[in-house]
């Protein structure tokens, strides 16, 4: 294989660069109409007006990079796919332009280019195949099945049916149901404010002296940390309720000091 000297960068920009840039901008106008970078490459490739098998991948890479550049200039946000392809093509381009480095492992630039050409050809072939398929004489459009259902009403047997989709959706429904189950608290270890209030209403009559609020926590709720936390919160909330209704007073000498509670002497 003859190794051509690497082309100086931008040397041939003048040849097709302007037209190409214009074409790129035209492409960007209906970017929404494209199905990803491979599709854009295919469209760009067609502008070379040669058989896909004879396409110049180097030129195609240039065209694509111009396309991305034009998008950037027009401040159009390209999806990540397009940018990843641009990076890969830039890499491919450098591989194609530089003389092969014998110490380098992996496929050569030519191999990579050939593979890209293959992918484009394959995609294009699939598109043609799809078009041929859709153009066939289709059932319900060109060819028809019997329109009149057989309606002999002799023995009628009922059978049940379901589709694979029904089956799979049913299974998915069951298996994902738990994910969506509303959150329910385990009530066993929770003392509610109502319960604490109920209890304190009965006790407060005896609370003539300042008493540590924690002494109002019921037995059985003091040892287990989870239960103690819940009971403390409920008792504190209940105490606030009592204060609000004027039946008790609260005090705390300093931050984090014990909170003390005393009955309000109405007399």
């Amino acid at each position, binding site marked *: 294989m003859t190794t051509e000297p690497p082309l100086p960068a931008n040397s041939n920009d003048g040849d097709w660069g302007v037209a190409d840039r214009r074409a790129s901008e035209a492409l960007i106008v209906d970017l929404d109409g494209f199905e990803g970078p491979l599709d854009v490459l295919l469209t760009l490739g067609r502008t070379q007006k040669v058989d896909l098998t004879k396409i110049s991948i180097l030129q195609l890479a240039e065209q694509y990079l111009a396309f991305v550049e034009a998008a950037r200039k027009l401040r159009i946000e390209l999806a990540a796919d397009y940018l990843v392809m641009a990076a890969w093509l830039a890499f491919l381009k450098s591989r194609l332009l530089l003389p092969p480095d014998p110490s380098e492992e992996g496929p050569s630039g030519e191999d990579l280019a050939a593979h890209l050409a293959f992918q484009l050809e394959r995609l294009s072939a699939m598109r043609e195949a799809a078009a041929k398929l859709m153009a066939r004489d289709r059932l319900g459009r060109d060819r*028809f*099945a*019997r*329109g*009149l*259902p*057989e309606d*002999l*009403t*002799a*023995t*009628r*047997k*009922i*059978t*049940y*049916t*379901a*589709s*694979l*989709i*029904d*089956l*799979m*959706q*049913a*299974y*998915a*429904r*069951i*298996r*994902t*149901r*738990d*994910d*969506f*189950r*509303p959150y*329910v608290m385990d009530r066993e270890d929770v003392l509610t404010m109502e319960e604490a209030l109920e209890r304190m209403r009965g006790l407060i009559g005896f609370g003539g002296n300042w008493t540590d609020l924690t002494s109002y926590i019921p037995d059985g709720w003091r040892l287990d940390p989870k239960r103690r936390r819940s009971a403390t919160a409920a008792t504190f909330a209940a105490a606030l309720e009592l204060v609000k209704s004027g039946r008790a007073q609260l005090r705390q000498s300093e931050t984090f000091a014990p909170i003390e509670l005393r009955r309000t002497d109405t007399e």
Partner: protein
Amino acid sequence: MTEKDQDDDPSLFLAPPLAEQERMVEAMLFASPVPLTVREMEARMPHGCDAAEAMVLLRKRFEGRGVSLVRVNDAWAFRTAPDLGFLMSREQVETRKLSRAAIETLAIIAYHQPVTRAEIEEIRGVSVNRGTIDQLIELEWVRFGRRKMTPGRPVTFVVTEEFMDHFGLETTRDLPGLKELREAGLLESRPGFDGPPRPVSDDDGDDGVEIEPGDQDELFE
């Protein structure tokens, strides 16, 4: 108006040959979901066609055949020959959709087989009616599997060859997992899409359903 003129001047106009017209009548009667009158058929055919004449030919052609042309009021339709009714008995099955309980139960059996009734209930979170499994067995989609080597040696359920046939599966291993269902767009991602969330009341208080990790892996490997 111009139609009239053309009719008057046959040289301007050539109707398809009668054999062709017969084909047309045949195709229309076959495809139509309702009996068709001669006039209706003629309206669809190219100008100058004579559906009545084509019908005469067609009727003759189907004399004594397995299907024949019958007259329904003014209209015509193909009907299978009455003496062959015995062949048609299978066509008369009325198909109904499987109930939600049944399809869920079936799905669990397919994905978890061999599975016991208790396990099905555990996964569904509700008890399984005796009739539901009976129905699936009657449909020949489910059969009894080997007994489980656990206390009580409960019977298990597995799906049948008929099940695979019906659902177009070669093995139950081909059933897609949750991830694949999601990728194919077959899994609604929204909760409550098909009904309110499960009640949290006592009727399914057994909701701490745990599927052993082993079960899952097997499925979604």
